[in-house]
């Protein structure tokens, strides 16, 4: 009984909880509600993945209207992986958020904060559940609008300008997506993604279809911060409240990557991609993005900003996987969606803990701090290894598949770029490790913050270590994720690569 309604419950439960959270008195109650909802969604999403992992599909017709006329929720392995990821990150971010948000946000705004957080959560989950492309646009905007509001709650006034800039670019992206949806609707008369796919196949040559495709890809590329459309991202991740940086860095851009996969390979098709320059463009921008963003990360003075540029580079890896348009390539993209969320979530959490203690995220303020905060430091070290892609960590698995894809197509420049990107990651992560561990602590006043150079409370460390251990776990035990990914890639209809 519940199994039939899983996909709908994942959207309805947090959607109903959001206004309730807004009505609760400020304090810990709204947080408790959000926490309960996120864990419930986590269980539902895990259940959902178990149902579809072998290639089954869960269908739900909203209001009883049969697809393609009504809106359909259609869950296959790909949706389920991303939904599980979003729910899991929310479930570990919320325990972490309690203390860090109480420190960063006015007490009068707490219930509103958790209400908007739940809305953002609904939007991201909704994107993963829906099988209707216009419905996807609506969820995209629900998640984006609430994300702008959450970012603007940052302590620094630059959070406001970051949110504004993100809003302008995000809205342009969403509107481009809307134009693309309109143009494909003109050609096919349908909005259901599966139906679109079938109706598009005979008319792949039409110019309107190509124009629509271009609008959609550029629109989504703005949302996922594909180089060179990434300009909004560094400020957003730097100035947003820490828990929001963790949540958005681990989910928002990943969900956008999912949308790109779904639109490019699910709605259009691999055949279509091969007659457009999209795959070559993905490869080209991916290569430039990996190298330039990694290089930019090295020269940053602020750790959050460095991690933000690193995120742009990591997203470029996922785009590279799409550019290969092969089984290995897409496997790498999907696995990296998952693994990058684990490693970047852990890194942002660890830096957030340092900010919680010393009130600054600049390199020079945290010299020598690793000795006073050994657990946080160890977490940064392990998550950093995963980011670089050392065997035994989750990051290695995705890099491995990406390399396989590059070697399979003998794309040596791309393979070289992946290696250079990893080397650059070694440099910027080492810069952080060196500052934290080997530099002498300087005694000087830092503006706000309690300036308490000691290990953080357990409620911040536990979620962090949960993610760090997940990084190791998914680096060694790869069966479940790879099985789900294989099913997802199979359903996207990408054939093995042939010469």
């Amino acid at each position, binding site marked *: 009984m519940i199994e039939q309604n899983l996909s709908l419950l994942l959207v309805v439960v947090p959607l109903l909880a959001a206004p309730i959270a807004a009505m609760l008195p400020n304090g810990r109650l709204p947080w408790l509600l959000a926490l309960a909802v996120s864990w419930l969604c986590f269980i539902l999403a895990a259940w959902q993945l178990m149902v579809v992992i072998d290639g089954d599909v869960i269908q739900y017709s909203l209001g009883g209207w049969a697809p393609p006329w009504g809106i359909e929720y259609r869950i296959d392995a790909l949706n389920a992986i991303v939904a599980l990821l979003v729910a899991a990150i929310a479930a570990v971010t919320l325990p972490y958020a309690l203390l860090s948000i109480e420190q960063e946000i006015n007490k009068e705004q707490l219930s509103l904060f958790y209400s908007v957080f739940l809305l953002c959560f609904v939007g991201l989950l909704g994107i993963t559940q829906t099988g209707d492309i216009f419905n996807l646009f609506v969820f995209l905007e629900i998640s984006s609008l609430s994300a*702008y509001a959450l970012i603007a709650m940052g302590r620094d006034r630059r959070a406001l300008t970051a949110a504004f800039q993100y809003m302008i670019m995000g809205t342009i992206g969403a509107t481009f997506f809307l134009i693309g949806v*309109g143009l494909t609707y003109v050609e096919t008369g349908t909005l259901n993604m599966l139906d679109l796919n079938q109706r598009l196949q005979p008319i792949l040559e039409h110019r309107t279809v190509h124009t629509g495709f271009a609008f959609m890809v550029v629109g989504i590329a703005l949302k996922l911060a594909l180089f060179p459309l990434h300009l909004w991202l560094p400020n957003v991740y730097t100035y947003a409240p820490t828990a929001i940086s963790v949540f958005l860095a681990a989910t928002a851009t990943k969900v956008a990557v999912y949308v790109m996969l779904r639109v490019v390979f699910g709605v259009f098709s691999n055949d279509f991609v091969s007659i457009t320059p999209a795959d070559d463009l993905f490869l080209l921008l991916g290569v430039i993005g990996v190298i330039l963003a990694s290089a930019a990360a090295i020269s940053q003075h602020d750790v959050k900003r460095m991690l933000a540029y690193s995120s742009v580079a990591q997203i470029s890896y996922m785009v590279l996987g799409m550019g290969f348009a092969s089984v290995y390539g897409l496997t790498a993209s999907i696995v990296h969606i998952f693994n990058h969320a684990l490693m970047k979530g852990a890194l942002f959490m660890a830096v957030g803990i340092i900010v919680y203690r010393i009130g600054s995220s600049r390199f020079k303020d945290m010299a020598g701090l690793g000795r006073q905060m050994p657990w946080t430091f160890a977490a940064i070290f392990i998550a950093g290894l995963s980011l670089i892609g050392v065997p035994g960590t989750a990051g290695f698995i995705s890099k491995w598949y990406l390399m396989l894809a590059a070697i399979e197509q003998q794309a040596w420049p791309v393979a070289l770029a992946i290696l250079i990107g990893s080397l650059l990651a070694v440099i910027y992560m080492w810069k952080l490790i060196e500052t934290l561990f080997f530099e002498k602590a300087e005694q000087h006043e830092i503006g706000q913050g309690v300036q308490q150079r000691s290990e953080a409370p357990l409620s911040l460390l536990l979620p962090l270590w949960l993610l760090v251990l997940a990084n190791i776990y998914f680096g060694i035990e790869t069966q479940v994720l790879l099985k789900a990914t294989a099913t997802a890639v199979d359903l996207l209809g990408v054939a093995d690569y042939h010469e």
Partner: protein
Amino acid sequence: MIDVIIGHYNYWIVIVLMMAGFYTVISRGNLIKKIVGLNIFQTSVFLLYISIGYVSDGTAPIIAEGFTRYSNPLPHVLILTAIVVGVATTALGLALVIRIKEAYGTIEEDDIHNQDESL
């Protein structure tokens, strides 16, 4: 040729509005003007959808005696949703501008940038 231009006049308006809005968003430094540009840009897309739904000689999609051709109501309904999204975006954008004005004392992008640089 003339027929193509005049017969599709609504699409030409869409293109002009779209480019005017888009250009305003990119080129203006005043945050309010950016939001105005964004609105014009979004409105052009609304017009595009409404034009798509029009059927020659069709009436409003209400079942009534004597009418057999109706315009396609689906794009209109979609645009109702998109208008709501647009209104929400505008409201949020204006709220952000107010907060920016309070924090910086200006809504000119260059001034804001200079203030941040001088820190």
